């Protein structure tokens, strides 16, 4: 096996238990928020981002499409602005929606990114929407998902805005932590001669995962409500 491929699989295996460890529990999160002050909001925000595989898959899709570090920074910044607006705004104003429905839309964003990366629009002979605008739109949707999640916790009384901002800060920290291995793995894979196969495999996986998560969320919506 090629050295790069070996490194790639090694990295994936290294991060596998990390993701498993970061997997949180709702009740313990609530307890942490109740007793841990503002620091707890940062921690729960970061944990939520690190364990939210729909957010991570979407980020992976975004990074896969981009070649330069400058582009990555630009697109991630737009995504961040988008989710900050809805996370802070919706939580502060108490706007919420059914979590399954919001997550179903987030799943569609994963599907969309895989489809776009595979040149789906070109194949359909349709001009693809402005990528930066779409990233902003999906950022807003992901942010609304995070806001809905945050509002499902009892945030207690006092320091309401500070708590939202700390949760947001945690989300950003989690995003940076998640992006480091994603960018690293994707950059490493680009040097491999089988990158095309890997690119197709991952983006087809995003399409499948997007469909799977969408079906799962809709099913949960109808079963649970």
């Amino acid at each position: 096996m090629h050295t790069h491929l070996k490194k790639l699989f090694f990295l994936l295996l290294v991060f596998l238990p990390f993701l498993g460890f970061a997997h949180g529990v709702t009740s313990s999160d609530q307890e942490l928020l109740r007793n841990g002050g503002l620091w707890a909001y940062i921690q729960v925000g970061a944990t939520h981002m690190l364990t939210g595989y729909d957010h991570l898959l979407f980020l992976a899709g975004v990074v896969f499409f981009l070649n330069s570090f400058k582009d990555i920074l630009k697109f991630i910044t737009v995504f961040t602005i988008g989710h900050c607006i809805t996370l802070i705004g919706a939580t502060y104003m108490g706007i919420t929606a059914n979590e399954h429905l919001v997550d179903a839309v987030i799943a569609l964003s994963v599907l969309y990114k895989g489809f776009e990366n595979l040149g789906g629009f070109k194949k359909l002979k349709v001009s693809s929407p402005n990528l930066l605008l779409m990233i902003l739109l999906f950022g807003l949707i992901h942010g609304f998902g995070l806001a809905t999640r945050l509002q499902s916790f009892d945030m207690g009384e006092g320091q309401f805005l500070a708590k939202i901002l700390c949760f947001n800060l945690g989300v950003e920290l989690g995003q940076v932590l998640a992006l480091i291995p994603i960018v690293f793995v994707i950059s490493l894979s680009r040097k491999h001669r089988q990158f095309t196969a890997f690119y197709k495999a991952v983006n087809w996986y995003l399409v499948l995962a997007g469909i799977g998560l969408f079906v799962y969320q809709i099913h949960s919506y109808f079963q649970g409500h």
Partner: protein
Amino acid sequence: MRRQHFFLLLALVVLCSHDLYIKMESYFLEPNQQATLQLYNGTFEKSENTITRDRMLDASITAHGKKVAIDPAQWEDQDSTITKVTFQARKAGTYLAGVSTKARNIELTAKKFNDYLKHDGVLDILQQREKDNLLDQDAVESYEKHVKAIYQVGDVKTTDWNTALGYPIEFVPQANPYEKYSGESITVQLLLDGKPLPNQLVYADYIKNNDTHSHGDHSHEHKHDNKKHTHSHDSEHQHSHKSNSGEAHTHTNGQQLRSNDQGLVTVNLPEEGVYYLRTIYMVNVADHNELTHRSKWATLTFEVSHKHGSDTHTHDHDGDEFPMWIFVLGSLVIIGILFFVFRKKN
């Protein structure tokens, strides 16, 4: 025929005391939903008496680490039998409601006292009376009731269910009842003055969801007629029970358990439904001019649903979604398969 009627009448005269329960239409609420706590003073199925406010030493709701007293003015009598309080559920979490009443005295003839001990499952005292040849002695008993209910608002589970309210006697679950599902069991600790109470009889029963009444396969009919009743553990009103079969109703249906050295009992939760635990701790009183016995009563109520029902459903990136490691492992396998497919194609 006359003989049958005679025995039926005899059965009707069988006496029972009044357990106190905190009862809700559903123990699963949505945040900000309006709900009612009802005090059932009788059996779990039928209340016989209201509870006057001056009797309440404590009436409170504990949630998110705070115990908030229920304003006495909020209580109202629904009718002559049920006292209730209407409130709005707040944020998501597991809530604990508690009511503690003052002690009262009751005088009972020997026969009535023996009947009550039998039908309410205070068997240790009954045996003691038999052993000591005291079955013919009348009794003056001081009794007090301390009851709790645990209900779930929204999906988020919090830890207030394990709060000891400091009542003279109380049940404290060892796990969140709303993280327990039908087919499982729950361990509950019985505390007397804050300390584990060992070797105490505890009765646990449940009402199936959507049933108006269920104790397994048989049903009960309650009859109330002041002429036929002679005592109750709550003053003005009196009650008795008979079943369709004419057998005397008792308060000891369901699981009969005995607490271990740590005061623990394990209650099976075979089906979805509203579960209630009850116990009466009684001691003989030797050094008192008036009293012969002193009792402390406790109940605990909560609801159990099935594991994947809408009531227990939680949604987030952890909770009931499939575990992260399965997702990651599955993803790697799929990507690996796709990779080899596309490599071969290339």
